[in-house]
C-alpha cells in the first residue's frame, strides 16, 4: 500500500514544540533500509511555484501556489506500508511532524476508476 506523505510547514509554530524531535538523518536511514521510503524530495518555496489550469481550452498560469496549499508544502515522500497504522508511525517519527505538519494520502487503489 502506497501513501504520499506531504511534508508541510506549520504556519503558526509554538515555541519548543520540536524539542526532542527525532533526527531526520536517522529517519531517512531507517526508512530507506526498510524499503518503506520509495522516493522523496524537497520542493522549492511557494513563490517558485506555478499554478496551471485550463479553462475554455486556454492554459491559464498563475505565479505562485494554488491558494489552498498556501506556503505549506516543503517536500514529499512516497511510502510503502502495510496499512495506515504503519504509515502513521512512520510519519510520527519524522521531525517535521513535530516542527511542522504531515499529511498522509493513500494512493489511488489499483483497478478503480
Amino acid at each position, binding site marked *: 500500500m502506497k501513501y504520499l506523505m506531504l511534508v508541510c510547514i506549520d504556519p503558526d509554530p509554538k515555541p519548543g514544540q520540536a524539542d526532542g524531535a527525532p533526527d531526520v538523518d536517522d529517519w531517512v536511514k531507517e526508512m530507506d533500509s526498510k524499503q518503506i521510503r520509495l522516493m522523496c524530495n524537497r520542493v522549492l518555496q511557494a513563490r517558485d511555484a506555478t499554478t496551471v489550469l485550463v479553462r475554455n481550452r486556454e492554459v491559464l498560469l498563475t505565479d505562485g501556489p494554488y491558494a489552498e496549499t498556501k506556503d505549506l508544502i516543503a517536500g514529499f515522500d512516497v511510502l510503502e506500508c*502495510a*496499512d*495506515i*497504522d504503519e504509515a*502513521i508511525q512512520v510519519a510520527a517519527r519524522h521531525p517535521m511532524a513535530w516542527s511542522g505538519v504531515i499529511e498522509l494520502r*493513500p494512493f489511488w*487503489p489499483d*483497478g478503480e476508476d
Partner: protein
Amino acid sequence: MHTARKPVTEQATDLIAEIYTDAWSRIVGIMLRLTGGDWDLAEECVQDAFTQALQKWSVSGVPRQPLAWLTTTARNRAIDRMRRASIGTAKLREVAALDLEPPSYTSDSEIPDERLELMFTCCHPSLNLEAQVALTLRSLTGMSTGEIARAFLVSERTMGQRLFRAKQKVVHARIPFRVPPTHLLPERLPAVLSVLYLLFNEGYGDPPKTRLCQEAIRLARALTQLMPDEPEAQGMLALMLLHNARRHSRFDTNGDLVTLEEQDRSLWDTAEIDEGTAILERALRQRRAGPFQIQAAIAACHATAPSAAQTDWPEIVGLFARLSRIAPSLVVDLNRAVAIAMVDGPEAALPLVDAIVETGQLDDYYLLHATRADLLRRAGRMAEASESYRTALDLAPTNAERRFIESRLRPG
C-alpha cells in the same frame, strides 16, 4: 403433557430478536475479513442470512447451533457473490484461495468473536468522530441507516453518505482490521471508549433515546468481556450503569428536568446501581485509575446516598480534585466548586466559579451561569442571581432547560 409451548414461528422470531445484535456484529466481523473489507457485501450477506433464518426457522424450527447456521449461510452467500463477480477478473485468485477454507461452521463455539477488531476499526482516529459513531452503530449494533439517522436527527440520505464515506476511507486508507498491538493501545483504547460514551450521552440527553443508551451499555459490556484487563473499560461501563439507573427519575410528568437533588430516589434502579458499583470495585482493585473510573466513583457516591444532604460530599470534592489532576478541564473545576458548596457553603464556592468565568473560555456554557446563579441565590444575593439566571436562560439549549431556569427565576 406440554403446557402451551410457543409455536415454531414465534420461537424463531423470539430467538432471532434475542441474538440479533451480538450475532450481527460478530458475523459482520467475520464477513469483513472474508471479503477483504467489502463492507456493503458483508452487511448484505449478513442481512440475507437473517432473512433466510426467519423463513426457514419458522418452518423447520431453530437449529441447535444458530450462530454457526447464520455464519455459514452468510459465508456461502458471500462466496457465491464473489465468485460470480470475479468471473473473468483478477479476483479469481482470491476465490481460489477461499475454496481452501473449511466448508462451513458446525458449532457456535468455533465461531471467532471479532467484535473487538471491529470496534477498533470503526473507532480508528483517522476517521472523524461522526464517522466513527455512525460506523460503530451500523456494524456493531445492526441498527439500520434510517434508525441511526433518526437517532442523530439527520436525514437518512445524510447518514447514508456519512456511512459510505466512512467505509470508503477504511478501505482506501487501509485502516487495519485488528486489535492494535500493545504499544498502540494506550492511544487507541481511549478512542473506542469515547465513541461508546458519546453514544451513551447522546441517548441520555433530552429527550432521552433509550435505544442508544441500551446499545452503548451492551457494547461497553462486550468490551469489558473482550478486554477484561482494562480497568477504564470497566469504569466506563460502571459509569453508564450508574447514570442509567436514574433514568426514571430524571424528568417529571411534564417532561421537565429534575435535578439530582430533587429526584425521587425510590425510582432508582437498585439492581443496576449494585451492578455498577460491583464493576467499579473490580476495576479499582487493578490500581490503574483513569478518568472513567473516577467519574464512576463520583456517580457511585450519588447513587448510593439516601438523600442529597446525606451524600458524601467531601469524598466527591476529593474525587473531582483527582479528576482535575489527570484530565484537567474547566467543567470538572465547575463541578468541584458545586461539591465544595455542599461542604463549605456557597460563599466558599463562588470565588472558584468566578475564576472560571474570568477565563472567558466557558462564556457560552449555560451551566456555568446557571451554577453561579444557584450559588448566589443560596448565598442570598438575589439581584446578582437573577442576572446570572437570565444569562443562562439565553444560552440554554433546550426548552426543558429553559423551563427549569425560568422556574428558578420565579420567587418562592
